[in-house]
């Protein structure tokens, strides 16, 4: 009888190994997400399900590039060039802190929004920063943006959506454990907001005239990021001398490094325990949100 049970035992072991493999595979970005095809359903990793001890990966996104120079000043300064320079300095500073850094571009090329998102979404335990230079705003100031929280679908809103769009087809999720690519940021808006608050405070100390609280704006690049994600925009491309912008690189880098150091324990704690901060901390952190602005979701 003991010999007869042995194959059953082996079958259980094999089934367990298969399940474990399937579980780890569900965290990976599918090939379709790395090279999204228009019209095809796309998915992003459900959670940054790395163990708490996993090293932090900072993904820096110098916006624009290639055929898209972004904002450009009357003296020929181009946003894509300035932010690439900022990104390289920031990478060096973060690597000096022992952090792993990935850049979405390191040359004058222009990856699409989804290509940039795919780079972040392939990382475990990532933080995403997209760097910009504005066309307007008081020169020498810097602003941080995160996405607004997704609003609940009220019956009226649903009716409005149905009047504008084809009726949604209710189907079971064919990819349990994965989330829709187009709204990958939805589950991270609160963490992103907290990171934005920490960085904006640092920037306000270094750049006089900058706001002390970040704004929530529907920045397109952030929507498809399955990780804490913020946009940083310095003002402005209208300066007459490029050196005025270059001078912002060092304090900007210092502010980002400090904000990441402040944010890391919170991120590790939230990802590891799925427990939020204590109520007093939550209330205190929520207070500055009052100054945020509008957004589309």
């Amino acid at each position: 009888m003991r010999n007869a049970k042995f194959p059953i035992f082996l079958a259980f072991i094999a089934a367990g190994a298969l399940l474990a493999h399937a579980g780890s595979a569900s965290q990976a970005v599918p090939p379709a997400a790395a090279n999204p095809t228009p019209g095809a359903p796309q998915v992003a990793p459900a959670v940054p399900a790395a163990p708490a001890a996993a090293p932090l990966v900072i993904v820096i996104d110098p916006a624009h590039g290639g055929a898209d120079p972004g904002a450009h000043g009357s003296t020929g300064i181009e946003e894509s060039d300035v932010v690439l320079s900022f990104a390289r300095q920031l990478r060096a500073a973060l690597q000096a802190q022992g952090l792993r850094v990935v850049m979405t571009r390191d040359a004058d090329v222009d990856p699409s929004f989804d290509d940039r998102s795919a780079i972040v979404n392939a990382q475990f335990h990532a933080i995403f920063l997209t760097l910009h230079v504005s066309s307007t705003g008081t020169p020498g100031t810097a602003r941080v943006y995160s996405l607004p929280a997704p609003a609940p679908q009220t019956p009226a809103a649903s009716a409005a959506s149905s009047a504008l769009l084809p009726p949604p087809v209710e189907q079971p999720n064919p990819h349990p454990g994965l989330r829709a690519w187009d709204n990958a940021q939805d589950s991270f808006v609160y963490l992103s907001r907290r990171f934005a608050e920490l960085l904006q405070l640092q920037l306000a100390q270094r750049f006089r005239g900058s706001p002390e609280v970040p704004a929530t704006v529907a920045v397109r690049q952030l929507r498809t990021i399955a990780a804490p994600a913020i946009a940083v925009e310095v003002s402005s491309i209208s300066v007459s001398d490029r050196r005025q912008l270059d001078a912002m690189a060092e304090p900007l880098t210092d502010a980002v490094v400090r904000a990441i150091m402040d944010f890391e324990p919170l991120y590790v704690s939230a990802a590891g325990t799925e427990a939020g901060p204590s109520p007093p901390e939550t209330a205190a952190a929520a207070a500055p949100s009052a100054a945020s602005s509008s957004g589309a979701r």
Partner: protein
Amino acid sequence: MSRRWIIVTIILAVCVAIGAYEFPGLRRHVSQLKQEGPSDAENRRDVVAPQISTPTDVQSSAQIYWLAAGSSDTLAAVTIQLPLSADPVQRSRQVVAALIAQAPTAAQRTLPVDATLLQFYLLSDGTAVADFSDELASHTPSGILSEQLAVDSITHTLAANVPAIARLKILIHGQEADTLAGHVDLTGFFQVATPAASANPQPQPSVAPGLLNSPPPAGSATSGQK
């Protein structure tokens, strides 16, 4: 030198002196005319989008949100007198047309001067759809701040003058656009609220309880709807 040449020289010197005295004033006048006169873009817009007038128009005070004087990053309401329709759709078209065309100064504009509102629709639940010409996307300065100010100026102006509108969808030439000018997402809806309402949102946690799949805060004034 004969007496005749002396007289001619004196006359010429007087002419030069008068010219030198008048020249700065003439330059100022020419530059003023350049600033005040309608540009080609404004003339084109006036042909494409003539003034909207309806039988129910009543001269009223309208609050229009442009950049605050001397600021490049803050909006401020300016009260102007406009003929406003009782019909919310026509009223919306009138205030948006004023927002584009009647900025106190060029520096206070938030929308390109040659942009036009092609169509405006309003659903019964308060959802509005504004269809702008291509110039809104192609001539809005690229950047998160400038694009956010452009959208906020539209939503604040609508909120202040057309209470029936709750949220806004922006189309570019009849199509849904990915972004306004490379940054601000146009695939969703924008909440239509005045700055006062936006400044008093429901408190929301900075980190969601449980981090993942947490319910969003109800009634957050900072959020729109997807």
